[in-house]
């Protein structure tokens, strides 16, 4: 059982900034995300695109914003459960909650902050009739740990950045990489496309286009796939792994059944106060919540996270008073023993 003060569901910008604000109040956080990496929409949908409305950043790439948020909260040592979806929530007698993921990992906390954005990112699965039989037995829709493919034969399908980037990466790890796409054209960063071309020329990536994977075979695990070139005859390829990368789409999913008031696919909260939901102790912040005048913007999520942490503090430390402290004045004390503080000005006479 993982225990923490604030359990955050969703490691997008809102969830990541919550770690910092909570840390200032000496509250520990643990984050759960269905994605294998933090950043939410910023890392899944548009990591290489600029954002222009983050206060004080005239321009910042979404991927860099994620990096900076992680760096900012690092000294508060957040825990992460990545690549798992929060599935169920149970209220305990002592008022705390236990949240269990689809992989069975259990987390306990007195406060739960849902920062789930548009929902948990779920892979778009190709339509192949027995594909679900091979899930986790050769078929994977995202790559959590590339090492599991060391010296294995891998088939990747897809035509976007992740298909290109993983083909490049795995060409050094796997014994054999085959990339299959419905068209001859790929869409990705120019250097990725060129790199794949280069690896293909060197025989390190086996490229099959325009083609589609049309069947999967195997007994207890995936053993081979059938690929059909447009207008051609099906061909079999022996493989240890098949990784279709057709992007992920967000689904509110199990949270919709947690007894929370839902409106327009979002969780209703009290915006006059602290973004608490209809269940005391459960908050919803960032894109996942709704209230009159709600705007789904990163800066709004930051504000909501900050106010939510004040309310969480009162739940976790009943009866204790809290005064606002400026980081400039009181510095930042990390849970790792680090301390950041403003340099003292010197007091010295001038002759």
């Amino acid at each position, binding site marked *: 059982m993982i225990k923490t003060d604030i359990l955050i569901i969703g490691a997008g910008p809102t969830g990541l900034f919550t770690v910092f604000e909570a840390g200032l109040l000496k509250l520990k956080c643990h984050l759960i995300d269905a994605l294998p990496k933090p950043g939410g929409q910023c890392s899944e*949908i548009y990591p290489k695109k600029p954002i222009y409305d983050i206060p004080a950043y005239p321009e910042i790439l979404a991927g860099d914003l994620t990096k900076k948020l992680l760096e900012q909260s690092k000294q508060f040592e957040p825990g992460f459960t990545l690549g798992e979806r929060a599935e169920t929530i149970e209220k305990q007698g002592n008022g705390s909650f236990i949240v269990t993921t689809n992989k069975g990992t259990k987390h306990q906390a007195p406060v739960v902050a849902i920062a789930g954005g548009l929902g948990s990112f779920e892979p778009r699965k190709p*339509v192949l009739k027995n594909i679900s039989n091979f899930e986790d037995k050769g078929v994977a829709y995202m790559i959590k740990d590339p090492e599991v493919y060391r010296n294995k034969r891998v088939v990747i399908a897809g*035509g*976007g950045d992740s298909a290109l980037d993983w083909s490049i990466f795995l060409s050094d790890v796997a014994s054999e990489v085959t990339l299959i796409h419905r068209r001859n*054209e790929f869409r990705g960063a120019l250097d990725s496309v060129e790199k794949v071309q280069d690896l293909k020329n060197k025989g390190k990536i086996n490229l099959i286009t325009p083609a589609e994977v049309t069947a999967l075979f195997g007994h207890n695990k995936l053993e081979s796939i059938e690929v059909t070139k447009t207008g051609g005859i099906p061909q079999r390829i022996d493989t240890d792994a098949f990784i279709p990368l057709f992007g992920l789409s967000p689904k509110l999913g199990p949270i919709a059944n947690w007894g929370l008031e839902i409106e*327009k*696919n979002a969780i209703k909260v009290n915006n006059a106060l602290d973004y608490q939901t209809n269940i005391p102790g459960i908050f919803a912040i960032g894109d996942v919540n709704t209230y009159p005048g709600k705007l789904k913007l990163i800066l709004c999520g930051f504000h909501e996270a900050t106010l939510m942490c004040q309310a969480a503090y009162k739940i976790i430390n009943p009866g204790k008073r809290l005064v606002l402290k400026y980081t400039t004045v009181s510095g930042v004390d990390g849970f790792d023993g680090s301390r950041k503080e403003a340099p003292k000005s010197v007091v010295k006479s001038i002759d």
Partner: protein
Amino acid sequence: MSSDINIKITDRLGVTHTIEAPTDMALNLMEVVRMYELAPEGTIGVCGGMAMCASCQCYVQSTHELPEKSDDEEAMLSEAFHVKSNSRLGCQIQMIPEMEGLEVELAPEA
């Protein structure tokens, strides 16, 4: 208003809505669908209109001459599901006076 055009949008439940879309707000079809809430929040416009998610895919039923597909739109449609010969991405169709009378049906949620 004179700058409005009339378009017909059939939602994912099969209901056809006739709506007025402004042409002076640089809106695209996906944004019009969201403005009139013809599809639940979060099920359309996921990528914000960058031709990167296909949540705004629609089937064009009228014979309007639409702008050619960009490489991005072409690439996205080649990876989307439920694609037909008249599929387009709503976020790539701008609301301009030439679109008067446009008729589209939203593709199923993928």
